[in-house]
């Protein structure tokens, strides 16, 4: 089965993000494919390259980056949700006159059209929120 995963929870604040990751791992281990991971609402914080976890905890953005790069999974971060929450790539930072940018590499800022595309292209879309 070809899945897409929508992550709306906030990393570290909500367990839903961990659950999404474990679902993604399990799906891949069971030889399903993941078409896209789409970060929306507070899930965009998973794309923050500046996140620093304590030594005995997992760095959630890095974890998602590694999983998606290793398995060639498309990762989209909703640009509207992200820019409001201060998750910017270099282009958006320049466009809005901001000094810094922090989008983790390998993740793409894009619109909700990518979410619709994920619905059309995938067998199942599963959302992890709350």
């Amino acid at each position, binding site marked *: 089965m070809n899945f897409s995963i929508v992550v709306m929870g906030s990393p570290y604040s909500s367990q839903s993000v961990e659950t999404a990751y474990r679902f993604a791992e399990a799906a891949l281990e069971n030889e399903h494919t993941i078409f896209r991971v789409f970060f929306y609402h507070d899930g965009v914080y998973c794309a923050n390259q500046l996140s620093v976890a304590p030594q005995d905890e997992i760095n959630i953005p890095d974890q998602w980056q590694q999983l998606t790069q290793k398995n060639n999974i498309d990762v989209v971060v909703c640009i509207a949700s992200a820019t409001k929450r201060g998750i910017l790539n270099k282009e958006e930072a320049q466009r809005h006159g901001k000094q810094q940018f922090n989008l983790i590499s390998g993740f793409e800022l894009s619109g909700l*059209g990518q979410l619709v595309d994920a*619905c059309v292209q995938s067998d199942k*879309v599963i959302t992890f929120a709350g």
Partner: protein
Amino acid sequence: MGTKKNILFAMRQAPYGCSLAKEGLDALLACAIFDQNITVLFMNDGVYQLCNSQAAEKIHKKSFEKSLKALPLYGVENIYVEKESLDIRQLSVEDLSLPAALIEKKSVGALFQQQHTIFQF
């Protein structure tokens, strides 16, 4: 975009207090623009999104009531509101700003089964 999927949006949060209502509506409209077969179900606190006479300007927000009026313009016609959610909040269809079909809780499962994807906001 090719295949048309049946996508249901269950709107369960009150507007303004949390951005989920607005982000849900944005996702809904994106799916409508790309010509998907959309159904919207207002349930739980989501029924408050439909209340008429919202005075959002008093809290410096854009009126959600006005935003919802876009639904028919985007071709979204399958609009439902859960009867029990209205009843428990002592609301009636007269309090709503959009025409919505009443659906009883016991029938919601069947509506869900018709969908390829369900989003909850």
